[in-house]
């Protein structure tokens, strides 16, 4: 019984001693950094050309952190003698990252694929008001959007996304 106790005490010491000689797992950010996986939800980027101001993302956000303002403009008909078309033009598309829950419902719900996830996470600010990012900044982040990777074997590959 005493031997079992002594062995128990010594095995614990062995674990800590062994760990002391193994390399530490710390990644010394910002000198070194780890890349998050491509699906990581870092920031939402906006492709302005695709947006038609349908407001679906705005409505489906659980936090109501997307602010959209737009107006309609007339466009010439597609063929001669046809009806004039209207296009939605985006005036303001702000996402308040202080409120954003990073749930991804807006990205998923957009019918025109105008919103994308990007693993970019280094956009912290010193003032909470500067976390409200406008459509120019959101458009800049489009360069950080990765290509969606291949899927695991056995997945049913569908036409879109």
């Amino acid at each position: 019984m005493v031997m079992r106790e002594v062995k128990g005490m010594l095995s614990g010491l062995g674990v800590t001693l062994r760990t002391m000689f193994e390399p530490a797992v710390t990644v010394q950010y910002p000198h070194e950094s780890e890349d998050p996986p491509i699906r990581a939800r870092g920031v939402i980027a906006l492709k302005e050309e695709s947006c038609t101001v349908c407001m679906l993302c705005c409505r489906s956000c659980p936090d109501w952190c997307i602010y959209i303002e737009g107006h309609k403009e007339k466009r010439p008909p597609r063929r001669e003698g046809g009806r004039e078309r209207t296009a939605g033009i985006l005036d303001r598309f702000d996402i308040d990252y202080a409120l954003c829950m990073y749930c991804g419902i807006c990205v998923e719900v957009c019918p025109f694929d105008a919103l994308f996830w990007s693993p970019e996470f280094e956009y912290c600010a010193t003032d909470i008001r500067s976390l409200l990012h406008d459509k120019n900044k959101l458009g800049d982040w489009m360069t950080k959007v990765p290509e969606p990777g291949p899927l695991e074997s056995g997945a049913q590959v569908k036409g879109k996304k």
Partner: protein
Amino acid sequence: MSILALDIGWGTTLAVKTLVVMLLIPLGALIFGYVFLFKMMAHMQSRLGPMESGGFHGWFQLVGDGIKFVQKEDIFPEKADRHVMALAPFIVMLSTFLVFLVVPAGPRIVVAPLDVGVFYALAVSSLSVIGVVMAGWASANKYALISALRATGQLIAYEVPLVLAVVGVVIQSGTMSLQGIVLAQRDGAIFGWDGIGHPFVLTQIVGFTLFIVAAQAELTQPPFDMPVAESEIVGGYMVEYSGFRFLLFFLAEFGTAFAFAALAATLFLGGWALPGVHGGAADAFGPVVVLVKVMFVAFLMFWARFTYPRMREDQLQALAWKWLIPIALVNILVTGALKVVF
């Protein structure tokens, strides 16, 4: 009065000795704290510890912490007993300083070569109990009070094995003077063979283990850190302190760890002595040798600190009274018998 071979006045000697001790403790505490608390603990937990402050592996971290503490506001709770609370950290530090007066670092490098060095060192290290109780009671905080009461019971209970463990060493060396004990280890022989002298850790291994365990309890380090149980009573008797006084408690903790490790190194590992090294060389190498041995003992103590959970107060007391003290008494019996026979 003289220091080493120099013959200088009484006042100058006193000043030099005081300065050495006053500088040694904080410096020792800093080195100890950095190496063991930050780096060793970090690597045992699979992480790196401080790396940024000071550039090279964060060596400046503790110094920076010290500066931060010194510039903080000294807060006293409204219902606290101001004077007692203000005095408590100094008493704890005092006991640490006083131990170092007798630890030798060379044949002639010792601040006060007392003939009853062992007796003095153990007696003086108990003064910290008063400081802890003062801090706990005067803080007007229930957590501090619980901690002070736990500390009283624990520190007094573990004084006994601490002292009894050393008795074996005293029997074997025949003197209570620390300098004499070191010389006995260097010049002695184990059952007639004197190849490596007679480090008492070999023949008094039981005493060494008891001393380390009891010292761990005296320092209120895990597995005996009920008085400072961080996840329960958040710092215990130190909880209401801030600024410079908290720094004193912190320094006292590591300074006392340094002190007990130094005592263990002197009593059991041979202090400044290396077998075969005498005279001036011993004076030169002595401090380095002591430091190496002290670091080794401290490694053992901190290794146990980071590995084990803490014992409950009653289990802790049971360990002291039902196990450590009887083992220590048996050790004394056996040592005495063998000393008479051989």
